[in-house]
């Protein structure tokens, strides 16, 4: 009894092979090499972290979809992306129970609260990370060096902390491996607190020595390029972010080279590349207008550099993206394109340049709109008693 499905819906009637699910699946594919590289760097701890965080996200998603709190399905892959991205932004030795908390919070506060996929205001992965950053500031600042011998057979001790308990300090464990505890600081933290700037080639590949960094920026850019070429992601946003961050950093560097690091270091250290390619481009939380994308990206780049230089935190990408997420409806509004025909009115003085969305949009139904809130000027004079 299979009947041909007739779908009745409003415009636009676009027939395209791309569905939300397809896009999300390809984003997951493109994230897999990055995750593999991360596991190669940090071994079994990173693998456990990725699995636990993603599982927590999926669990929360399933719960909220089941209870009808949010729309969407598990099979749309969006919770997987959230989980993978969240795991990649956490330190590899982050206690697994805290990772699970981050995953649950990411979906519950970042997504389900707003109604599920497509309705979220903030990037869910970053909401989860911001929560654990505020809740466990010590654990989230504890990085361990990459490429430690024996990383595939033993966990970083802090990973296996019992739920609700303080994780072990990996300093003693590192000492036993005859590695300096300071090697565990990220390049950004080293620059911020010790004034040491890492070399460009080290940063680009993430391969040299025991640097405590995330996956190689080169690899992330490569995977991002795949997404952009397949049109699963808009290339404008990452370009705008990196451009504005580089420009701001370069201006400051030109102003005082002794005090500010070179723009190259700014671009390729920390999570800027990952944030620019994968987090800022989240479709639900970034503007849809091309002009708005440039503004949005430029705002993130500028804020990132400003937070890194002038705040107490070494890393600023997360808050920069969250702030820009909050600003994106406004950016959309001011960068709305001029509708055909309206532009000609510009010369006539008070004509509005842009289309505006009224509170009761007349394009839904003129009668209905006027029925809800009658416009005062069309009403006859108030009847006198």
């Amino acid at each position, binding site marked *: 009894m299979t009947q041909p499905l007739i779908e009745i819906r409003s415009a636009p009637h676009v027939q395209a092979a791309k569905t939300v699910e397809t896009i999300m699946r390809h984003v997951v594919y493109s994230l897999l090499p990055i995750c593999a590289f991360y596991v190669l760097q940090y071994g079994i701890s990173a693998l456990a972290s990725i699995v636990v965080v993603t599982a927590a996200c999926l669990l929360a998603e399933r719960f909220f979809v089941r209870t009808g709190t949010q729309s969407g399905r598990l099979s749309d892959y969006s919770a997987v992306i959230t989980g993978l991205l969240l795991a990649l932004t956490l330190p590899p030795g982050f206690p697994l129970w805290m990772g699970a908390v981050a995953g649950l919070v990411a979906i519950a506060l970042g997504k389900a609260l707003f109604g599920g996929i497509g309705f979220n205001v903030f990037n869910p992965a970053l909401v989860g990370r911001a929560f654990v950053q505020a809740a466990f*500031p*010590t654990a989230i*600042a504890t990085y361990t060096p990459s490429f430690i011998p024996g990383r595939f057979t033993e966990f970083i001790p802090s990973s296996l902390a019992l739920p609700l308990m303080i994780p072990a300090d990996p300093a003693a464990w590192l000492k036993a491996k005859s590695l300096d505890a300071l090697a565990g600081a990220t390049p950004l933290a080293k620059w911020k607190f010790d004034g040491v700037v890492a070399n460009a080639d080290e940063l680009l590949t993430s391969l040299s020595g025991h640097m405590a960094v995330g996956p190689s920026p080169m690899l992330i850019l490569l995977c991002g390029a795949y997404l952009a070429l397949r049109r699963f992601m808009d290339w404008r946003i990452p370009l705008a972010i990196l451009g504005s961050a580089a420009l701001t950093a370069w201006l400051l560097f030109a102003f005082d080279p002794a005090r500010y690091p070179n723009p190259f270091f700014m671009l390729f250290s920390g999570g800027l590349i990952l944030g620019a390619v994968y987090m800022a481009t989240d479709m639900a939380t970034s503007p849809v207008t091309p002009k708005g994308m440039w503004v949005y990206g430029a705002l993130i780049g500028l804020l990132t550099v400003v937070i890194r230089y002038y705040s*107490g935190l070494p890393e600023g990408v997360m808050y920069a993206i969250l702030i820009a997420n909050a600003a994106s409806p406004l950016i959309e509004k001011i960068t709305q394109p001029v509708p055909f025909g309206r532009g000609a009115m510009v010369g006539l003085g008070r004509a509005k340049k842009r289309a505006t969305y009224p509170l009761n949009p007349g394009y839904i139904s003129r009668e209905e709109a006027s029925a809800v809130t009658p416009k005062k000027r069309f009403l006859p004079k108030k009847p006198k008693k």
Partner: protein
Amino acid sequence: MSTPEKSSAQKIIPIAVAGGTPSTPPASPTAAMIRTLGLVSAICGLIIVGAYQGTYDAVAANKRIATERAVFKVIPAAKSISEFVALPGGGIEPRVDAGDTALAPGVVKFFAAYDAGGKLAGIAAEGGAKGYADTVRIMFGYSPECQCVIGIGVVSMRETPGIGDKIITDRNFLANFNALDTRLKGDLSALANEVKAVKNGTKTNPWQIDAIAGATITSRAVGKAINDSAQALLPRLVPKLEILQKAQKS
């Protein structure tokens, strides 16, 4: 609920009066209002004065105990304290009105602490400097014998729990203040060496403070608070230590 009723009632009043049927009560006479307000004020005044008198002794005792506890913490040998002010001109006099009255500019408040035998055990003073979140206010104990700081306590701070507030709990950090050198220059005009927090693990001199790793900003604030307060107080205080010795006997 009540607002629309009131406004409509006010509109109606003149009409009603003209019609000769007063349906709403007329406005209260001024005398009644004044009488009521006076009565309420009198009752409330009585209650407040009663509460103030009733709790005055307990509040004063609480404040004294709190101050004593803070001073005893930074000067372990102390058994009794008295409060003094150091005047900008260099004089020292006992502070009589130990209330919350603000100090004149340039005047520094401090406590002289005496041990069981009535001997001067040390000086306690407060200091403050900008930390990570807000001003970190600390109290430190100064021992005239070793010319050094012998203990600190935090008066108030809003540093991040778990990171900045380690300055209360971190043993290695507190060990800095077992004998932190605050010797004066030969002419007693200023500290011989500036008290300063240095990066964790790089303390080489007795006037340096080994900062807590990860809480450098808060540690620096503690160092600056001690330094600023000691710079202001000690040059005035050290030449006059005998006065403080005598003060206890009288």
